[in-house]
């Protein structure tokens, strides 16, 4: 038999997609930076769709959600926009003041609770940093030949990110800084209900409340919103090792920070069937009997994550010192 390059199929090195590295940090408007994130090994990042967000685990071990606003045809980098929020619990301040190119942060997802549904035309309404998930949607609407318009409001022109990028679309985009134009004329922009038109809006809570009023005459499902505010935070994510206890055999396997749960199990001779190893296919689904999983997959809904009764060990980790798995 010829000499083989990789003799053991189960111990191939991980395509570790549970961390990303900051490749670039650019100030794009007053109080807004964009981060370009890449895989430390330069490889592909998991695929995503417009409206998707990633969870980034920052220095304090808490994770924050940021919408992806880059180019999905670029498989090797993600872009997120981060607004410095004075009232935040420190996540945005950390990104603005401490996170620098070269730093590595924990990655969860991408997950999408704000998907673009097929339509003949779209109305997009963004408030401030809420523009980020809408940017890739606009690219797609354009590609699909759909009719679309964007109304983009912010405090001042200088606080509004991506204006140069949006200027390429001409008068499909209405930029309305509050200090120049006052409050957004939502009713005027949205107009009367039209079949085949979907409305997407992202921004601060008052904007979304006003959008609901402006769309009151529309079918309920025509308005798609995503609230741009810090979501419920789970417990801090562990950066240290944790133990995985295998319920059926009673064995315990220690998972160090540099390997996935799947790899740690494999190295201990416990193979769990897997396929994508990116938390996207669902093959490795494993029942959690005790402990708090740190979900990093793209599969579970928020309710399912909160239930904590299953996990995808190819990417997900543990918030607690110990996880008990049904293996």
């Amino acid at each position, binding site marked *: 038999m010829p000499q083989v390059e990789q003799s053991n199929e189960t111990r191939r090195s991980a395509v570790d997609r549970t961390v990303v590295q900051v490749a670039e940090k650019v100030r794009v408007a007053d109080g807004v930076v964009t981060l370009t994130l890449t895989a430390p090994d330069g490889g592909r990042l998991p695929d995503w769709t417009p409206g998707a967000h990633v969870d980034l685990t920052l220095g304090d071990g808490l994770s924050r959600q940021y919408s992806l606003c880059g180019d999905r045809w670029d498989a090797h980098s993600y872009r997120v926009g981060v607004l410095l929020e004075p009232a935040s619990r420190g996540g945005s301040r950390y990104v603005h003041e401490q996170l620098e190119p070269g730093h590595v942060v924990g990655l969860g997802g991408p997950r999408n609770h704000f998907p673009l*549904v*097929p339509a003949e035309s779209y109305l997009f309404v963004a408030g401030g940093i809420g523009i980020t998930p809408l940017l890739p949607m606009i690219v797609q609407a354009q590609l699909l030949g759909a009719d679309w318009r964007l109304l983009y409001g912010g405090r001042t022109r200088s606080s509004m990110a991506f204006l140069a990028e949006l200027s390429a679309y001409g008068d499909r985009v209405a930029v309305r800084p509050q200090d120049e134009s006052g409050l957004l004329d939502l009713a005027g922009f949205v107009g009367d209900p039209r079949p085949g038109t979907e409305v997407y809006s992202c921004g601060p809570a008052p904007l979304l409340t006003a959008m609901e009023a402006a769309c009151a005459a529309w079918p309920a499902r025509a308005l798609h919103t995503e609230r741009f505010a810090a979501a419920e935070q789970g417990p801090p994510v562990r950066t240290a090792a944790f133990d995985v206890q295998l319920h059926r055999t009673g064995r315990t396997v220690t998972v160090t920070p540099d390997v996935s749960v799947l790899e740690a199990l494999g190295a201990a001779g416990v193979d769990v069937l897997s396929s994508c190893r990116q938390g996207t296919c669902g093959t490795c689904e494993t029942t959690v009997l005790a402990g708090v999983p740190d979900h990093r997959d793209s599969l579970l809904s928020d309710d399912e994550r909160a239930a904590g009764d299953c996990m995808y060990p190819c990417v997900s980790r543990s918030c607690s010192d110990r996880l008990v798995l049904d293996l």
Partner: protein
Amino acid sequence: MTLAPSPATDLPVSDADPFGHEVLEDPLPLHHQLREAGPVVYLSRYDVHALSRYEQVQAALVDWQQFQSAAGVGLSNFRTEEPWRPPSLLLEADPPRHDAPRRVLTAVLGPRALRRLRDRWAADAEQLVDEVLAAGTEFDAVPALAQAFPLRVFPDAVGLGPDGRENLLPYGDHAFNAFGPANDLVAKGTPRVAELSGWVGEQCARAALSEDGFGAAIWAAADRGEITPQQAPLVVRSLLTAGVDTTVHALSAILHAFATHPDQWARLVADPSLARVAFDEAIRWESPVQTFFRTTTADVRIGGVVVPEGRKVLLFLAAANRDPRRWTDPDTFDLGRDPSGHVGFGMGLHQCVGQHVARLEAEAVLTALSRRVRTIALAGPAQRHHNNTLRAWHSMPVRLTVR
């Protein structure tokens, strides 16, 4: 970016016919040859490039940006040729058009959505195995088990009516033949295409589907605006095209694997929890879906070779699944191996959306069999069924001993 063309000497040329009967009967020698010839081989007969090593096949499968599916995943190039039926919204589409249908089907066929079927299918499998064994312990495993089980549970799960289900297998067989060249296998199916397509099309309508199946769930997604009402029937069609023959041949593959590897069957009987691994190992070992094409969207460098933009590239999933560069003793069917990472279901954005359904069906059948059956052996020579894309069995006489 345009890369300079590499010297022709870097590109091995083969005039083999991967869709000829000799290869369809036993594709392993060709797969070996192609893998050893280099990371890319030019197939002169069809004017296509071929990838057959694991590393390159896997990389091309995940790289939807440079290896598009929208130009068709068969030999026919939709950029220049009219497809025989409206293209699939799943298999023959890329982002952004692929997004919404894929999202809907992923939810309908996801592992958590299937939990409600687990107990029923386990009971169905036990019942089928009991019926088969009651009729005798020597029989043809292809119709009796491999076809019978999917045809028993899948059309119900989709929500099809009782009539015309016998159309499913010939329709699927033709659809998978049509990914290859216009050879005798395609010609064989052509006379019935209009009739079968017509029947399948009728089954995709909302009114034809029961209220609790996958089909109804797809239509419900259309009601919620997640896909358009025009897309819904085509998404249902994907289930009917890709959901039956593939599973049938996967079950045949695993039954053949066990009939020829009694030690592995003994292992499963001793530990039925190996059923899931056994199924994926059988998919790796036999690769029911042997090949799919992609089309390059740019000049792509693979190894030392540049494949120009707009070329059809033939991905040998089956060859990758037995590449010794990736797998130890790749030709061995071994339940002790971790088959994770095989490309028998594809990989990446287009990875088989029905894989959890297939695993659940197989787990039900294997678990039921392992409860009743002590040994499985071939009772005569098994006969291949030739298909341009699928590796299949026509018949497989087996003799069982019961516990």
